[in-house]
Each structure stands twice: as C-alpha cells, then as structure tokens.
C-alpha cells in the first residue's frame, strides 16, 4: 500500500519545490503570500467539512429548526466574522508588500511580442540592458518598473512575488525580494498571442551589487 502512495507523494514534494512554484517562496513577499494561502487552505478545508457534515445530518428525521440560526447565525454572522478576519489579513499583507520609497534598487522590465528586455544600473551609473535575464541584488528590496511595447503582458516570478501587468502607455511598479543569491524563473502570465507559452525569462540574484557580469559570464 505504501508504494501506491510513494510515487504521487514524491511527485508532489518535487512539484512544490519546482522553479515556478508559489509554494516554494524564496523571499519575504512570496513568503507572506504563501502564508496567506496556508491559512486560507486550512480555513476552507474546515468550512467545506462543516458544510458536508451539516448536509449529512440533514438526512436524519425532520426536526424543528430555528430559521434565524441558519439565515442570521450561520449565513450572516459566521460568514461575516470569518470573512472580516480574512480581509484584514489580506489588507495587512497587501500593505506590507507594497513598493514604497525606501532606497529600493530600481530595475526595468520591458515586454514585447515575444520576449523581455531588462535593464539595471551598472557600476558607473549607466543602465545595462539584458535580454530575457534580469539581474537583481539578493537580500534587498527591488522595485521593477514594468512597461510594454505592443500588447498587454504580465511580469511574474512566482517564487519572489505576485505578478504585475505590462501595459502599453503605463509604467507599473512591483516589488521583489530574493533572500539569497541564485536563479529564479519567470514568465509572461497574460495571454499575448502566438508565442505566449515561450515568453519565459530568468532572474539572477547577486550577492554583490552592482554585479560584475564579466565574472558571472565566465
């Protein structure tokens, strides 16, 4: 019996650690959201179980039941309290992960059909461009300024933060933080035409900032 479950379990564990998994956060922004997900998953599981039990109990003999218990007690108060707690948690996390003016490193991401043009500030203050590879410092907040050339795209690095759309005519801003140096995968999340599936990119988080790219290249 153990064997039957061994394979899916192994796959599941491997899956959660995969390069695009929101469940393997590698920075505080993604961790906060993963925490929210964990809370909501447990809550949703309990509520589903409660509803199923209530429905099973309904198949007993008919009983005198208080209408207000169902409509006001369960429908109104129970749901209101749960939802208000959740909304509060959501707004709190949302406020925590907002970009703000705190000396964050600024990098740029420009999306087009079908690829990404990134740039960051080099050692001498010039912007250094790179294709489909974004350089950021590790352990420091990074604000990405996101623009688009042609149609709407969406910038998403699941292990570092949520997504933000790249919209022609607008400059959007999102915050990434990578706890440690390494490479993180990203993709375009908004349907953008024929090669949407191939609009992938990488994020390289560096120990030293600005990075010495000649060394990294070797």
């Amino acid at each position: 019996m153990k064997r039957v479950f061994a394979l899916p379990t192994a796959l599941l564990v491997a899956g959660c650690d995969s390069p695009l998994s929101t469940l393997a956060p590698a920075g505080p922004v993604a961790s906060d959201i993963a925490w929210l997900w964990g809370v909501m998953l447990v809550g949703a599981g309990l509520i589903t179980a409660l509803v199923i039990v209530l429905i099973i109990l309904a198949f007993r003999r008919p009983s005198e039941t208080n209408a207000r218990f169902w409509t006001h007690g369960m429908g109104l108060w129970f749901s209101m309290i749960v939802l208000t707690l959740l909304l509060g948690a959501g707004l709190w996390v949302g406020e925590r992960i907002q970009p703000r003016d705190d000396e964050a490193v600024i990098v740029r991401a420009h999306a087009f059909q079908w690829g990404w043009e990134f740039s960051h500030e080099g050692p001498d203050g010039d912007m250094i461009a790179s294709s489909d590879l974004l350089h950021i410092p590790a352990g420091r907040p990074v604000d990405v300024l996101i623009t688009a050339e042609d149609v709407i795209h969406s910038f998403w690095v699941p292990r570092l933060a949520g997504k933000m759309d790249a919209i022609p005519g607008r400059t959007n801003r999102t915050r990434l933080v990578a706890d440690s140096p390494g490479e993180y995968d990203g993709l375009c999340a908004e349907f953008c035409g024929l090669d949407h599936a191939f609009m992938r990119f990488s994020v390289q988080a560096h120990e030293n900032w600005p990075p010495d790219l000649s060394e990294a290249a070797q």
Partner: protein
Amino acid sequence: MRWLALTLAGPMIWAAAFTLVYGMHGVLCAGVAGPEGLSLTARLVLIASWALGLAAFVPLFMALREGDALTDRLPRYGTWIGLVATIYTLFPTAIATSC
C-alpha cells in the same frame, strides 16, 4: 411603491457612495497626488465623501417602519445591506496606501 423605494434606497446609497469615492480617488490620484501618494488633505476629502454616504443613512433609518410582515422587513433588510456595504467596502479610505 413607497416600500419598494425604501427597499432599494439603501443599496442605491451604497452604489452612489461607492461611485463617488472611487471616482474621487481617481481624480485625486490623477491630479493632486505627489510621488509619496495622497496628501493628508486628499485623504480627508475621501473620508469626507465616505462620511457623506454614511450620513445619508440617517434619514433612511428614520423613515423605516416597525412590523413583522415581509413588506415591513424588506426595507429594513435593504437599509442594513446598504449601510453594511458602505462601511465595509469604503473603510480602506481611512487605512490603505494609495497612488
């Protein structure tokens, strides 16, 4: 007709207040907001618009009637729906960062 108007009044006030605050927010962000977001004055304007929506419920509550028939209860339900929605959906004016 009176009870129908009373029933719809609460949600209508919510819709109006929601539109007003959301619209004001757009105008303020496009116009007067600096790089650090909304100024205190701008935020107070938003909160005042919210308060205006809440104040509109005072006369509505005074117009409600007692009674157990559904025709009496529905206006009460409608008014409470509107009030709770106005409080619930617009309280971020007081706490959330903007622009």
